[in-house]
């Protein structure tokens, strides 16, 4: 079996599995005052320091959450609500955001008096910096642009955009779930106010993530209760999840330079061999400013979900983009925003590599692909 879907979820690092299992054997609520509680709290706080250190943040800037979707929702809704009182109700968001941002913004527009300016991207998926600058203004509550796109892998100029936003007093959020472990990510150096990460994209557990949130960034909570996380997020902390997230983040960040070099070489080989095998395949996204493990193609004349089914039957596991809850492959909003029509946007496949990927995975894909494309082509 060839698993080429690391952008959906990458296998847990053995060290992270061990860390989660170890913490699961311990009893304790990190908010309890007795010795057992203190032990749990120590694990949580050490984990917080580990995550902060790995990503250039202060420990007090790490808000543990249940994953990327919660972090995105907390950043977008929480910062919007906190700023709405100041008369700032417009949101700037790129047109290629993940649904966790996209749908949160649309919900605020539909129910909470927000308006939105969708930031266009070019045909490589890059946010238009001039359009961003033009869209800024003193009515803007926040701006949100992902670090790297989950479908086509395009990396945005986050530092530049964040600086522009700050000139207008606008806080800047970035969804970096795909970036951590694949690209150098430093919260302070990037100059952003809020940053989303999640465990299962970097070798940690599912259901554990964090929002890095600057100390001076006002954010209204989504979850009310015990106020465990800086009063911004309530809920008994998931000590094993937090521990596993921290161990995985530290390792992923430490290995990032080597991982990026290895994955980029493997990815470039994959791209070359796919194009050799299927000459009419179209390579999407930015060829240079790109996640090292991402390769994204359109196969004109084919339905992406037919290709997926046929590859799956041959033991090659890929994705058509980001699947919605019912598993229906709708035309990708990312490709549509990049100027492709609905038919082209349904003909795509994403191959994503990660820490366990090998050249054998690429071999299996390239061996299966020509016959599969031939069959799926109308």
């Amino acid at each position, binding site marked *: 079996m060839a698993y080429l879907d690391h952008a959906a979820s990458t296998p847990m690092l053995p060290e992270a599995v061990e860390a989660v299992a170890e913490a699961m054997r311990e009893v304790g609520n990190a908010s309890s005052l007795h010795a057992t509680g203190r032990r749990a709290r120590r694990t949580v706080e050490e984990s917080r320091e580990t995550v902060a250190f790995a990503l250039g943040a202060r420990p007090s800037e790490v808000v543990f959450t249940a994953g990327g979707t919660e972090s995105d929702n907390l950043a977008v809704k929480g910062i919007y609500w906190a700023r709405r009182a100041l008369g700032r109700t417009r949101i700037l968001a790129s047109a290629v955001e993940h649904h966790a941002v996209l749908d949160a913004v649309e919900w605020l527009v539909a129910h909470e008096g927000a308006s939105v300016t969708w930031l266009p991207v070019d045909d490589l998926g890059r946010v238009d910096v001039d359009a961003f600058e033009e869209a800024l203004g003193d009515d803007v509550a926040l701006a949100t642009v992902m670090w790297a796109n989950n479908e086509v892998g395009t990396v945005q100029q986050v530092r530049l955009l964040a600086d522009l936003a700050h000139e207008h007093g606008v806080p800047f959020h970035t969804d970096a779930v795909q970036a951590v472990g694949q690209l150098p990510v430093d919260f302070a150096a990037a100059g952003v106010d809020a940053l989303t990460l999640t465990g299962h994209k970097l070798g940690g557990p599912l259901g554990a993530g964090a929002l890095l949130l600057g100390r001076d960034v006002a954010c209204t909570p989504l979850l009310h209760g015990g106020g465990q996380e800086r009063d911004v997020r309530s809920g008994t902390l998931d000590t094993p999840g937090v521990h596993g997230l921290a161990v995985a983040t530290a390792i992923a960040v430490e290995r990032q330079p080597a991982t990026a070099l290895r994955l980029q070489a493997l990815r470039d080989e994959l791209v070359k061999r796919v194009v050799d095998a299927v000459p009419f395949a179209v390579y999407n996204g930015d060829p240079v400013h790109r996640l090292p493990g991402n390769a994204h193609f359109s196969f004109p004349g084919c339905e992406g*979900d*037919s290709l997926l089914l046929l590859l799956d039957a041959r033991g090659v596991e890929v994705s058509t983009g980001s699947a919605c809850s*019912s*598993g*229906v492959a*709708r035309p990708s909003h990312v490709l549509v925003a990049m100027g492709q029509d609905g038919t082209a946007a349904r003909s795509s496949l994403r191959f994503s590599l990660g820490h366990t990927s090998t050249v054998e995975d690429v071999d299996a894909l390239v061996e299966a692909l020509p016959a599969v494309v031939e*069959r799926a082509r*109308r």
Partner: protein
Amino acid sequence: MRLLAAMSGGVDSAVAALLAARSGHDVTGVHLALSQSPAALRSGSRGCCSREDARDAARAADVIGIPFYVWDLAEQFQASVVDDFVAEYAAGRTPNPCVRCNEKVKFAAVLDRALQLGFDGVVTGHHARLSSGVLSRSADLEKDQSYVLAVLSPEQLAATVLPLGAMTKAEVRSLARSEGLAVADKPDSHDICFIADGDTAGFLRDRLGSQPGDIVEDGVVVGSHDGAYAFTVGQRRGLGLSRPTPRYVLSIEPVSRTVTVGPAAALDVSTVFTGAPVWSSPRSLPLECSVQLRAHGAVHDCVVTPEGAGWSVALRSPARGVAAGQTAVLYDRDTVLGSATIRSTT
């Protein structure tokens, strides 16, 4: 064989997929996403279009142990079934959307794609027998769906597997229960799947707007209506007339928006004229056989002769409330011979 099982999320299609897999076929499950904006949860007696139904289908596939995918056919369904449904009513006819869905979506778009992808055919949970290309009624006459499958051509039937034909619904449910399928006791679906609240007239009014016209009996205006599309031949309720004996819709004339009504006896039809037929088990004309004129309707002995591109079907006993747009299906006892769309009646 490599078979593609169309799985609605209901018990019938789950058991059909199960039986196909158990008898040694290489089965892949597919749920057809037909709604443009599916609801999260199932409501009322709709049976296939919510995300809950998609999940039920996925769970059944997991239990059976077969691969499972969701195919988005919302655009084809909208164009071939929903838009057709509205257009047919607007033209004064009474379409059967389940027939249209089988003809244009399940056994056309889906079958085409299955064959293209290297499958040998499709499996569905319809209650009808299909053996060596011959379609006939289900062992469970209450649940028989041979009528809505009669539009399939011999080529389509050759690539179709119907594992439930010899089973009653009770047997299907009992097998589902013993195999651990959670959908074993899921209620049957009845209503038109794309009309959430079952209010067909309201659904049509939203799309066609108010089109007032006269209700006429024997050439005399006896009432008025908001849209002729809200009526179907044979309908008694909703006319808003106060007459000593019940009045029924006899005919609908869409251009002048005239709905003609009359007593029950005036509904009797002795001859049905159709458009071009689809023969599933070809016979030569003239032909003595029986005919069914609507889903779950009565069966009439008849003589079929050619009439233009279609048939003239002379009924031995009068039929009541036959609507243009419905499908006439010919049977030889329980065997389906062919079908054609009803154009007019006398």
